């Protein structure tokens, strides 16, 4: 019996081996065939891929789930499909949540399934542009009949270029503006935003005073830098621009968060939060568009959140000690070189952003085309804002504008600086010391 038992065990073990080997083999195969494609397999950025043997399906990732936006995109795409039945059979717009947008796109790329085209945030523009992941667009755009490349504003393109090549098209160039709740200001016995502007008092210092008065009189918050929430510090560029400060040098290599101008700007914000109580303190939230704050700084595209529940106005960025500084937020569209049909995708991008379609997209996304950036043109597609407001905050808001901080290593820098700046948002913080520490922390990351 003992012999028989031993034999059965041996047989069982022997037969178990293939069973165990199966998952291990699959595991190894999975490991070896993971999303990490060999670099040599990728077509060189900008290289022309052969024309598809049969019509292809294109996919563009976007961060807007707005039904009106998507309907317009579908409309333009349908026209392209109809005009090019040999090239494409369908074009899909895939909305991804804004907060996780870059993460989701990167994960798709890592998984070997990049979208054909993708919206790209300005903060990550240098990273995408310099990575080699995107196709150069210059030849395609210039070669498209009626595209009018010379109409594109060179300043709007600079963030998306590397070595004189354009790697993404800045389809949205949206200025930051100030929305004002005039009803709330009146309830606090304060002048309206327009009155402050007309009297030459449209300054950050005055906004701080007005904000503090609103808080004291109504209990609502004074001014809100929308989306900042004591974490997205790069949005504070809308404030520190008026103080003459910037996060780092134009060549991305030198931290300037500890400059005297930045210390002054951050001290202003610190005082606004903790001394004047003019802006919501850390850990509290206030939504201007829900009537919880008197003043907010955000992009003009947020005007769609306004309704008739209170009297509002939209004004240009206020003046700081260094004068008035316009700030814009940009979004680009890039074509992934590793996607299956970069040539078709680039051709569709040229159609999607040609002068006619740019005008249609302009009702939601201010285009980088000079000919379209007039109050008259914008008014045709923006019924909410008057021609005078569009001239004041959009057309003039783009003049000499700077973008928010961007860097090829932005994600790491953002996180590292956020962690350091957390200690700035306490009542007794030493602003200069915290900013000095922040620079020490991010300087190596800037140089990477």
């Amino acid at each position, binding site marked *: 019996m003992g012999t028989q038992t031993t034999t059965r065990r041996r047989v069982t073990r022997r*037969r178990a081996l293939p*069973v165990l080997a*199966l*998952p*291990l083999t*699959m*595991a*190894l*195969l*999975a*490991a*070896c065939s*993971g999303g*990490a*494609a*060999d*670099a040599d397999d*990728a077509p060189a950025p900008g290289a022309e891929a052969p024309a598809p043997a049969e019509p292809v399906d294109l996919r563009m990732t976007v961060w807007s789930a707005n039904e009106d936006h998507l309907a317009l995109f579908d409309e333009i795409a349908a026209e392209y499909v109809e005009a090019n039945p040999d090239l494409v059979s369908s074009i899909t717009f895939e909305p991804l949540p804004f907060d996780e947008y870059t*993460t989701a796109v*990167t*994960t798709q*790329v*890592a998984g070997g399934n990049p979208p054909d085209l993708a919206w790209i945030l300005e903060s990550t523009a240098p*990273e*995408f542009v310099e*990575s*080699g*992941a995107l196709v150069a667009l210059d030849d395609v755009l210039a070669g498209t009949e009626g595209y009018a490349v010379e109409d594109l504003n060179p300043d709007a393109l600079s963030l998306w270029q590397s070595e004189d090549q354009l790697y993404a098209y800045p389809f949205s160039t949206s200025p930051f503006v100030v929305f004002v709740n005039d009803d709330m200001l009146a309830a606090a016995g304060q002048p309206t935003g327009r009155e402050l502007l007309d009297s030459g008092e449209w300054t950050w210092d005055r906004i701080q005073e007005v904000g503090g008065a609103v808080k004291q009189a109504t209990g609502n918050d004074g001014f809100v830098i929308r989306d900042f929430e*004591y*974490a997205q510090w790069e949005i504070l560029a809308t404030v520190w621009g008026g103080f003459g400060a910037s996060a780092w040098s134009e060549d991305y290599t030198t931290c300037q968060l500890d400059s005297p101008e930045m210390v002054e700007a951050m001290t202003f914000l610190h005082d606004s939060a903790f001394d004047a109580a003019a802006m919501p*303190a*850390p*850990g*509290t*939230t206030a939504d201007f568009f829900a009537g919880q704050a008197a003043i907010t700084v955000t992009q003009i595209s947020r005007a769609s959140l306004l309704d008739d529940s209170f009297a509002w106005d939209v004004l240009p960025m206020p003046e700081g000690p260094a004068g008035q500084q316009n700030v814009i937020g940009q979004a680009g569209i890039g074509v992934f070189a*590793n996607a299956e049909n970069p040539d078709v995708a680039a051709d569709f991008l040229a159609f999607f952003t040609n002068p006619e379609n740019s005008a249609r997209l302009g009702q939601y996304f201010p285009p980088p085309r000079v000919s379209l950036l007039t109050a008259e043109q914008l008014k045709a597609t923006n019924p909410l804002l008057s021609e005078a407001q569009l001239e004041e905050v959009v057309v003039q808001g783009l003049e000499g504008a700077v973008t928010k901080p961007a860097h090829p290593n932005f*994600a*790491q820098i953002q*996180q590292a600086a*956020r*962690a*350091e700046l*957390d*200690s700035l*948002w*306490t009542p007794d913080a030493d602003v200069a010391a915290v900013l000095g520490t922040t620079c020490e922390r991010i300087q190596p990351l800037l140089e990477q």
Partner: protein
Amino acid sequence: MTTTAPRPSATTGSPVSRRGGAPRRPWLTYRRRDNLTGLLMVSPQLLGSAAFVIGPLVAVVWYSLHEWRVLANEFTFVGAGNYERLAADPGFHDSLRATGLFSVGLVVFNISLALALAVMLDQKLRGTAVFRTLFFSPVVVTLVAWTIVWGFLLQDNGGINAFLEVLGLDGPNWLRGESTSMLGVVVVQVLKNVGLNMVLFLAALQGVPEELKEAARMDGAGPWRVFRSITLALISPTILLVSIITVVGSLQVFAQIAVLTQGGPGTSTTVLVYYLYQQAFQFKEFGYASAVAVVLFGIVLVLTLIQWGLRRRFVFHES
């Protein structure tokens, strides 16, 4: 009783005639059929495990030996480079510290509270069923929804501080203070899962024979002595189980951190899994993040082995 088919002759090399020999044994014997049936039955599970557990596990180890620049599509073998970098990375050390703090806090609060609630609700009193349901109900609430609600409650102008103000107390800014943010996260997690551990303890307590406690009382043991020497001893397997579940679970905390603090203020709540997430999905350092995942796997494995090893010493009764 099975017969064996004759082998070809080794001396002549000529095959033995089948016609004149014993009938050929069918290939699909009962044993083979049984084995094949068994293999077919377990194959879905095996394939699932291979594709979704073992495969990714091996892949992560493989990735951890590479620098993977996703956008540039570069995948370079760096050997132990990522592990060497981890050893010198202050961010990783901070995340280990935060993870340790969270785990200790969670295990101590969770097990103490769960045991205390279970003992209280083990009494034969009216209304205990209501309280059992009440304490267990957070377990079935969606984690993210639970955390978002607590995020509002823990705001500076949120419900907790409003309640404290009624009592004449000035509450801290829970999620913005370095010393209070971790406490806030731990409390949110304890209240979410304490009901599950409470039920496990309750089931164990109800399995303790009453006659043993009665015998101890007759021998002169007081209530504490009965609890310590009889009840705790008999439920020690459950305590071990709960502690393993809680420790392993504490090492995997992510959603609470992502929703409540995003690892801040500073890096005070950047636990290991959140650090891994940052490296992989925010910084696009998939190779480096894989090394963090391998280290996390090792930590969980070692802790589990240690706890199982300790059961001989501390578990007094195991069926």
